[in-house]
């Protein structure tokens, strides 16, 4: 199925060109997104480093905004503003685990699937055969329903937590990473500068890791990482809803741990306490929107460095 993938690979270049064009056309937006990215990184670092123990105060429960605190209090009398901001600490370790697993497996699958040929193995072209096998493996990984596997895990493990869910998402997400990388590598392999590098005696490892993966597949890697992070956060929020009604309480994290999924779940049960839902929803929008800009900023910095 070589031709199949070669024809599809053209779409990737157009998405990349769109990203570059966006920065050329919007210099102010590019600058803004730079500061937005710095703010998000600082937010994550502070949330991870500052110790936080939510204070429960049932006398002030469900008090509206501007009464006892700026953005109101939730059902246990905790400050919604601080609780919402500190909730990102829940996602830091799962994001690191998920990206580690997804890119670790995805890179190996991509290098085998794109026929990069570090050494000659058998008398026939073994790498060509491996590409076919990897293509089937990717089909299987994509056919696995992620939410089913997560539910099996949560039902059967003794102490399930969000890190396990992130690991499963990483394994399943590695198929998407590998597929996109294979398409990209196939295009790069036939390009002139790689021919030039081979002719001038650059080593195989340097060509693959430096010129193909690090310098030219960066956009693909960043886009995939952002898609996976968005998937994880949305899955946590959706899964809290199922888990709270099925297992009651949710068993993915300690009961007092701040979480957007929990805040949205508790707040959306009653329309009159809208402020409990509104703040985490706004933060969610801000974070997911900013992730897109972080990706664009990272790509822009790479482009300028080139």
């Amino acid at each position, binding site marked *: *199925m070589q*031709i*199949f993938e070669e*024809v*599809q690979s*053209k*779409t*990737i270049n*157009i*998405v990349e060109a*769109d990203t570059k064009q966006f920065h050329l056309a919007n210099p102010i937006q590019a600058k803004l997104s730079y500061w937005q990215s710095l703010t998000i990184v600082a937010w994550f670092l502070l949330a991870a480093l500052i110790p936080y123990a939510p204070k429960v105060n049932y006398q002030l429960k469900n008090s509206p905004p501007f009464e006892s605190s700026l953005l109101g209090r939730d059902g246990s009398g905790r400050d919604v503003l601080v609780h919402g901001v500190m909730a990102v600490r829940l996602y830091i370790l799962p994001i690191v685990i998920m990206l580690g697993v997804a890119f670790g497996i995805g890179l190996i699958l991509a290098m085998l699937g794109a026929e990069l040929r570090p050494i000659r193995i058998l008398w026939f072209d073994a790498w060509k055969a491996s590409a076919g096998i990897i293509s*089937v493996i990717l*089909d*299987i990984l*994509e*056919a*696995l*329903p*992620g*939410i*089913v*596997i997560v*539910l*099996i*895990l*949560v*039902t*059967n*493990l*003794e102490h399930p937590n969000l890190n396990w869910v992130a690991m499963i998402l990483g394994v*399943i997400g590695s198929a998407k990473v590998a597929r996109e990388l294979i398409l990209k590598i196939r295009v790069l392999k036939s390009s002139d500068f790689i021919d030039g590098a081979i002719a001038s005696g650059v080593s195989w490892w340097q060509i693959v890791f430096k010129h193909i993966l690090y310098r030219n597949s960066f956009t693909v890697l960043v886009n995939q990482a952002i*898609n996976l992070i*968005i*998937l994880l956060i*949305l*899955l946590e*929020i*959706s899964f809290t*809803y*199922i888990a709270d*009604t*099925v297992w009651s309480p949710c068993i993915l994290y300690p009961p007092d741990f701040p979480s957007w999924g929990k805040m*949205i779940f508790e707040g*959306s*049960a009653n*329309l009159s306490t809208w402020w409990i*839902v509104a703040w985490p*929803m706004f933060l*969610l*929008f801000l974070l*997911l*929107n900013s992730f897109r800009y972080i990706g664009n900023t990272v790509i822009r910095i790479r482009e300028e460095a080139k």
Partner: protein
Amino acid sequence: MSFVYSLSYELLRFVVVVWLTTLLIFTIIFYSPGGRERIEPVFLGKSSTFTTEIKYGYWQVYSAWSLRILHADMGFDNYHDDVLSRLKTAIPRSIGIIGFAVFFSLIWSSFVIIFDNIKINLVFGRITMIFLFAIFSLPAYVIGRYIGFSSLLFTNSEIMYWYIIALAGLLLSLFDGYYNEVTQATKSQIGSIRTEAYYLMLIVKGAKTWRHIRNAVFIYISHLMFMRIAVLIGGSVILEYVFNIRGLGDLLIQSARTRDSNLLLGIALTMGLIVALMQFSHRIMSMVLDPRLRNVGKI
């Protein structure tokens, strides 16, 4: 003749993918704590009280299970209901939600493409995009919960039931990040056909290009369904639960709650089969519409 070869290759590939997927799902459930004890009595005809006496091997249980599956027998769940008949009623509803989601997302994306290409008012276009991205980042179930409190859900009418399924599909197409990828894919697909050398050649020759654009759009739709089907299944699980639709997702949550391994196996098998069938039909459809995609007989 090349098409026949390609078709047989794809059929073989489909069988291999389905077999390995079921094997993987079976292995995960079998080796999960307590899974073995719950699967064995159902497929080897043992009473659950004697499970500790004889230990069957993994391959014995797997072969017994796969033989049962080949005879269209999925066994019984914890409540002694036939799993296959439960799945038969659930599948059309889940497929309905997914189908509606794909249909609506195609409509949204075509609107955005028109906006993007006309570029009459940049500020208006930018505000529209920010608004769309705002709803893209919201979880669908929250909106579903607010709508779900209406009395619509407690109806027995068949037409109203499908109305609710369409509503769930509409929500799924807008929220949970599905919409954004659809738009991106549509843009890149339309862009890719315009830069193709053969397309430019057709224009230079003055030939009609409609057939090629139509084929590219059809391939794109099947590509869309194939690439995003797993995400859509995940989204439909939540929305079925919110809207009280008795689909695959509702069965899945029920089986997780009662630790019903047999029902869980049936659902996982069905979901895997749906995705594999999508992959197969996508490849076949692409090969029919675009001769360049055929595996053999190429120059």
